[in-house]
């Protein structure tokens, strides 16, 4: 057989070109004339220009490609078990996955639902194929993540917390922050939610920290299942980024849309920062045991992925279309991470509230202290004493840190907008909306609630814009409850009926594990309800006091 002869050369026959195939597929749609499609999810935007599909892929090639990706993922999971991955995995890391994987499948499937909203809005059919693939992608992500979680539950030393995962998701104060993310994808103005908040900001910018930076940290902690699953997930994101950018380009073409685009990019960037950086920053910095000083800190990762990659190469070029980009918000988010210790304060808060979590948090140790001080100079002065207290109070018989007056921690207000507590005390603010007082972590979050999520924006009616609703301050739900009763109501009790799911340590030993009796006798309270009960002068004084912050007492 001649060297140049291959099976492909023998069997090859002329097929349709990719461009012809996508052109034909895009021609499947038509403008209905017998019955009009109802615009059930409204938008205040105008979409006149037909968006183009940059990916030019058809389902015939999509499904086998995705199946192949799946085969690699599931093969890797099998290999991880054969290689006894869990023998070497760091429990400090896997514990945080109880929170992360409780949250993420709902935002993923919400993204699938949101494709219904943009799919009908965008004129022309070309991008509809892209949206259809994204819909199936998101179905993939949601269920592949549920599968990963089940796999952890079956194979990790402590399954408690994984076993109650979706129930915990609905009840935990921390997962509700993630739900703000998910509901934001599918509720309110269809373009604001499904295009700007989801694809233009969350997927284009923050999936890089979620699905690339965080899995790298997993690998450093002996967990190579999470990178396998999430890098496979991330490989779908380029299609979603393309969908989002294409629709954005058709919106930006009309100057009438510019005011709303500026509003939504501002809201979406800030809220993505507030939510994703709080959570992923904590997982990456506090869930790891790897204290190699040569690796990037979360702040460095943020600078690479969000500042350099997203802000400079995606957001800034939008200015040439006449859009005002809020550079000050990007700078403020950066300052919150590097100067105001946003991530460290979030991790501190999570650990203060360990007994109402559904995962374990162990104390940071001397090795951790050195790394933090190296990466974030001044860290030890602000947080060193706190983590020493945390370690001391992690033992049964101590008064838990949340209620221990010796520590000096002051329980924070919760932000009505991003739902993360108001941890940067000096930035705390409050305002009235429709006659009711609300508290916020920052001026931009106040603006988001009061100005952006309203019926009018800078004199322009915005009837499609959503509203914040529900019992957004978690503490309100348990105001006046004994904490043991609240934990029971939350369902965060193990199957012996008394031992807590959360623990402030990684001891897998009944004699060291806290029970309901160990925490009973302390009452939860709502900072917001207390704040609302004050007079105007009282509120101003309380706010001024709050902005002064607190000092953790030295541990002798």
């Amino acid at each position: 057989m001649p060297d140049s002869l291959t099976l492909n050369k023998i069997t090859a026959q002329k097929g349709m070109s990719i461009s012809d195939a996508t052109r034909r597929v895009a021609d499947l749609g038509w403008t209905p004339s017998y019955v009009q499609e109802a615009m059930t999810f409204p938008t205040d935007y105008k979409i006149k220009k037909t968006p183009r599909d940059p990916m030019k892929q058809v389902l015939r090639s999509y499904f086998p490609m995705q199946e192949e990706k799946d085969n690699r993922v599931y093969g890797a999971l099998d290999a991880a078990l054969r290689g006894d991955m869990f023998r070497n995995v760091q429990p400090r890391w896997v514990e945080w996955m109880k929170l992360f994987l409780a949250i993420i499948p709902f935002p993923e499937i919400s993204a699938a639902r949101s494709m219904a909203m943009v799919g009908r809005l965008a004129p022309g059919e070309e991008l509809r194929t892209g949206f259809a693939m994204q819909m199936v992608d998101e179905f993939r992500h949601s269920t592949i993540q549920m599968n990963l979680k089940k796999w952890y539950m079956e194979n990790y030393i402590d399954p408690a917390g994984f076993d109650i995962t979706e129930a915990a998701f609905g009840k935990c104060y921390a997962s509700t922050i993630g739900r703000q993310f998910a509901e934001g994808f599918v509720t309110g103005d269809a373009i604001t939610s499904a295009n700007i908040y989801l694809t233009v900001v969350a997927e284009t910018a923050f999936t890089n920290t979620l699905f690339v930076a965080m899995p790298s940290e997993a690998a450093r902690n002996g967990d190579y299942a999470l990178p396998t699953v999430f890098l496979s997930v991330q490989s779908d994101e380029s299609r979603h980024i393309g969908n989002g950018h294409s629709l954005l380009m058709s919106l930006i073409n009309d100057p009438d849309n510019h005011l709303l685009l500026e509003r939504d990019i501002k809201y979406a960037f800030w809220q993505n920062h507030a939510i994703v950086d709080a959570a992923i920053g904590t997982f990456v910095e506090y869930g790891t045991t790897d204290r190699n000083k040569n690796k990037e800190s979360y702040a460095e990762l943020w600078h690479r992925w969000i500042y350099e990659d997203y802000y400079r190469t995606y957001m800034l070029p939008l200015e040439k279309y006449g859009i005002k980009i809020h550079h000050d918000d990007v700078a403020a988010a950066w300052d919150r991470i590097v100067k105001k210790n946003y991530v460290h304060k979030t991790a501190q808060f999570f650990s203060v509230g360990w007994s109402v979590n559904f995962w374990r948090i162990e104390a940071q140790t001397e090795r951790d202290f050195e790394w933090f001080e190296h990466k974030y100079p001044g860290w030890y002065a602000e947080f060193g004493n706190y983590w020493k207290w945390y370690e001391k109070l992690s033992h049964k018989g101590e008064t838990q840190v949340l209620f221990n007056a010796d520590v000096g921690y002051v329980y924070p207000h919760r932000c009505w907008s991003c739902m993360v507590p108001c941890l940067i005390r000096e930035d705390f603010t409050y305002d009235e909306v429709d006659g009711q007082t609300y508290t916020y972590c920052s001026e931009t979050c106040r603006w988001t609630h009061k100005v952006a999520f309203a019926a009018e924006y800078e004199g322009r009616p915005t009837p499609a814009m959503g509203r914040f609703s529900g019992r957004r301050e978690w503490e309100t739900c348990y105001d006046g409850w004994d904490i043991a009763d609240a934990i029971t109501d939350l369902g965060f009790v193990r199957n012996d009926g008394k031992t807590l799911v959360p623990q402030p340590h990684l001891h897998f030993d009944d004699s060291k594990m806290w029970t309901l009796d160990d925490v009973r006798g302390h009452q939860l309270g709502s900072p917001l309800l207390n704040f609302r009960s004050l007079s105007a002068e009282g509120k101003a004084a309380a706010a001024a006091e709050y902005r002064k912050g607190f000092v953790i007492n030295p541990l002798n």
Partner: protein
Amino acid sequence: MSVTETPSPQKSGAAGSATFAGSDSRKYNYFEPKGRKASHYEDMTVDVQPDPERYLLQDWIISFADGTPTYDKTWTALKSSNWHQFRAVDQEWERTHYQRQSTIVGMISNLIENGRRSGAPKRFDRAWVKVLSDHLGAYKHAEFGLGTATMQAQRYGYTQMINNAILTNSSYKLRFSQDLTLYLGELALDIEGIDLDAGKQHWLEDPIWQGTRHATEAVMGATDYLEQYFATNIVFEPLVGELFRSGFVMQMAAAQNDFMTPAVVAAAEGDYERNLANAVELFHILVLDPDHGDSNRAILVQWMHKHGSLALDAAHHLQPIWSQPRVKVAQFADALDLAKNRVRAIAAEIGFDVRATLDQ
């Protein structure tokens, strides 16, 4: 800095390396499985979309401007005393969905490749080639319309189980519409004179297809997501979709020297069996609902009448197509009788009466 480090308390993070409270709790325990044990599909699906009846302590936290929450029961006229009861009969989650879809596109690709290599398209009867380009070409738009209607509908369901079943339905319909598009495009590479624009022209203008287009647009334009799901699977598919696919294309093709097209179209019949099973299960539950069964049944009868009338009209308009192949091996009347019987059987399975529509 003072040393506070404590030695790592545990050497292995593997299951079974220590025994303590909860160390044996290795199953999702927050939902009631349909069977004795939870299926993998249930573990992947149940309660991922939460609601205030299922653990949502703080309620929905964003609403539409009129106060409608993120998910709302009023998005369908049907009512249920337990929206969480439904499980998809086909038990699809991502892995099984991609495996099945990938197998189908592989089968179709191989079929077309081998058929073309053997010169099969050139042996198709000339009259049949025109039928394929005009009418199979038109029909692909109906499949696309139902795919976009179900893509829309999957946003509204009150549970993850309902929405995911509708989502996979959409995925199957959109894939099949593309299967037909690409199949015709590849035939055109081998058969001179085949007009790839003819299908859309017939879809938009040919009186034969206007009933089908009207019925499809009625599904696309419905604002009740379960009406869309019902009209797709309980009405349009048996009365128009199967009528054309099985009752015409698959029966006629072999006699026109065409062994390829029935195999391509057969994939849609396989898809439909699964989508139908899911839809029958859901509507059966709703008709049997202890509190709302009677009102639900009445609504299904109304929907059947609305969409069934359009579908029957569409079917009758398609009748001339049966006369167009040179070799006539199937009769429209027989195919329509089969289609009506199919609807009667489906309705009996669900538990509602279709006489008012079918016997008109």
